[in-house]
């Protein structure tokens, strides 16, 4: 399952059924609705906080999976940054998208099947929050205006993630990933947290409503309905279109000329 998931993540182009399955699993496990098409009242963290078993579970999970790189009290080490004050949204994003724990030492952690269940994620979030205060909370996503979201996206997100949301390369082997598999909460979390090389957009830069709007637009971007013209060729742009034009010119048109130029019986 993890192997397939990695291939899917690397493909970069939406696999709606898989994403739907993952999203559905998270939704069912997490409880309250997190899909942007329905307004989601209330926080999206599922498990109640503060119960001693939960706290122990979180500590246990942290000790097993995270402490080796991030230190036993989240103070960081040479293998992983400090987690003090990163905020619940950051933890929820990294672990929820399967980026953490990293399976091997890579430059850029990549989206993958999450190792933990939703309950476990919630426990971890609480545990890391206990290291120190501050940091963005897990955002609540409610309905947003898609046209406004498009404008916010074009001004802030398109430069790195591409106007089509297909992702783009950065430097040093890093890239801004495609956005087609992110859930609304994950989108909002990434905007507020700024994971990896991504800048953060705190509330003085983007209001909560603007975050709702951009989340609504990003969720629209994955839809195949937007590819009204046919096969989108990966939404990679004019060079791929040029490649197709050459293949068609040589393979269909020049080939036809070869056939027509021959005399019957040749």
């Amino acid at each position, binding site marked *: 399952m993890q192997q397939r998931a990695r291939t899917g993540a690397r493909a970069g182009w939406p696999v709606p059924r898989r994403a739907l399955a993952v999203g559905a699993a998270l939704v069912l496990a997490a409880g309250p609705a997190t899909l942007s098409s329905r307004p989601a009242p209330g926080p999206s963290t599922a498990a109640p906080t503060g119960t001693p078993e939960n706290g122990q579970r979180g500590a246990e999970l942290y000790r097993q999976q995270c402490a080796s790189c991030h230190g036993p009290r989240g103070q960081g080490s040479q293998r992983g940054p400090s987690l003090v004050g990163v905020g619940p949204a950051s933890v929820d994003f990294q672990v929820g998208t399967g980026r953490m724990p990293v399976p091997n030492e890579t430059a850029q952690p990549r989206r993958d099947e999450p190792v933990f269940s939703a309950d476990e994620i919630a426990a971890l979030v609480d545990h890391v929050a206990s290291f120190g205060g501050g940091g963005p909370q897990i955002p609540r996503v409610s309905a947003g205006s898609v046209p406004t979201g498009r404008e916010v996206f074009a001004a802030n997100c398109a430069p790195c993630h591409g106007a089509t949301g297909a992702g783009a390369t950065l430097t040093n082997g890093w890239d801004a990933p495609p956005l087609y598999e992110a859930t609304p909460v994950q989108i909002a979390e990434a905007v507020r947290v700024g994971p990896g090389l991504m800048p953060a957009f705190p509330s003085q830069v983007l209001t909560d409503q603007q975050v709702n709007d951009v989340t609504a637009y990003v969720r629209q971007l994955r839809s195949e309905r937007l590819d009204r*013209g046919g096969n989108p060729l990966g939404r990679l742009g004019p060079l791929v*279109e040029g*490649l197709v034009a050459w293949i068609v010119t040589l393979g269909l048109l020049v080939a036809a000329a070869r056939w027509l130029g021959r005399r019957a019986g040749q």
Partner: protein
Amino acid sequence: MIVDRFVRAVDDRLRLSPITRKALAKVFPDHWSFMLGEIALYSFVALILTGVYLTFFFDASSADRVYRGSYAPLDGSSTSAAYASTVRLSWDVRAGLLIRQTHHWAALVFVAAIVVHLIRVFFTGAFRKPRELNWFVGVTMLTLALANGFTGYSMPDDLVSGLGLRIIVSVVESIPLVGSWLVFLALGGEFPSDEMIPRLFISHVFLVPALLVALVSVHLAMIVRQKHTQFPGPGRTEHNVVGSRLWPSYTLRSLALFAWVLAVLFALGGLVQINPVWLYGPFSPAQATSPAQPDWYVAWGDGALRLFPPWEPRIGDYLVPAPFVPGVVVGGVTFLALYAWPFLERLRTHDRRRHHLLDRPRDHPVRMGVGVAALTFYAVLVVAAGDDIIARLLRIPVYDLLSVFRVLVLVLPLLTGALAFLLARALRRGDAARLGDLTRADLAAARGREPPPAAEEPEQPARDRTGERIELWPEGEVWRWRYQDPDAGVTLVGNRAAPTEEEAVAAARLAYPGVDRVVVPGPPPAAPPGRVRTALRRGTDLVMGVSLLVAALRQRRGRRGPDGPA
């Protein structure tokens, strides 16, 4: 009957019969590579047909307009009228997106077909005297096609093409002394100006297409006047053209190609998305998207801009900006070299003869080497324009890939050029029919010095070549002639009937100087047999035989009388 009356009606007023007869009988050589230019021509026709439709819907204005339509993410947004009308055309006009996409695909195929056609003309030496003029016209059309493609995809004022416009503006601006003036005159001010879109529109829809139509006409007229070149072969001399007649054979096949080009373009236009401007969003000077590439035929310039190192020298108090060499100089040298090639080659080979027979590509190893090297160079540049896409797909740091490309663009053309040169020489010196048949011995011979050239084959066929002859015969009121070479198994019929024997003789003498002529009475025994003719002949022979037999029997019975022997 109708045809007779029509011909007579037109002829009574315009006297077109002689020209029409000559035109219908015109011979075109039968080689598939001669139809490549037609692919370009028919794509151009498709561009015009679809383009006219688009002009009814596109609003060439930078004024603000609110888009209202079925594309939800833009509904209610204020954009330029050009952009809003393009999104409207794509989402809210029935068949609009099909025509728009077909138009854009036709543009990509048009330039690709021109390049393929140029490659054919180049490697077969069809640009040599007397066809240098046609070569110039062709290269000019290539330039105009590039320009029109660029203005075409920049007109919708979307983010991706707007970035491309900004880059071209910077490239022109980098021209010393006059660069910024050229930009400001063209744009009517600083980028982005309000006049940009309307001026792109008028250039794209009127100025350049008018020039292209005129040049295409000149190009075709010159081919008609000079006649098409042909590959050497039995029955072919520098004074004739061997192949099929325009009517009906070539017409049908050419129209079939036309229909096929349209079929392919509409299939692409309906099934494969191209330039989804609604996803890219409207252009804004502060916005960007990644990756950002132009259409493939401009991408070689973009690749050059990426690969060229950050070199920005100063001449006194003045700056030569970084885009100048990769943008202006590389581009300028490219087109200058294309225009100058016939003369460069003539300088080198001192060949001032007229050529109507083509080279096989192997006949000119230097031309092969240079051509392949040049093609490789531009191909590497086009691929380099996508270095960030490749970097992301392969998970390689983009600057490492950039260094690789910087080396490749200089080294690979030299390698492929040298390889092509050696292979061409090997093919020429040896007996191999094609690349696959090359032997080690051929390759070894290629590396040696050029053997002394054989005595140059005379232009006229030798008088003492046995078997070749011209046969002339009367057919009703007209004369026909044909060429026979039994050793090569070739029979070629003169393409049109001559009113007098003298004219037939003159035609035959012109086409085959030095070949003996003989007048044959009556129809010749065998026309070039196609399956149809053979079947027909057998059938008519059979019918004639049977009817002769029946007639003979009837006659016999008649003589003997109806009642039996008297």
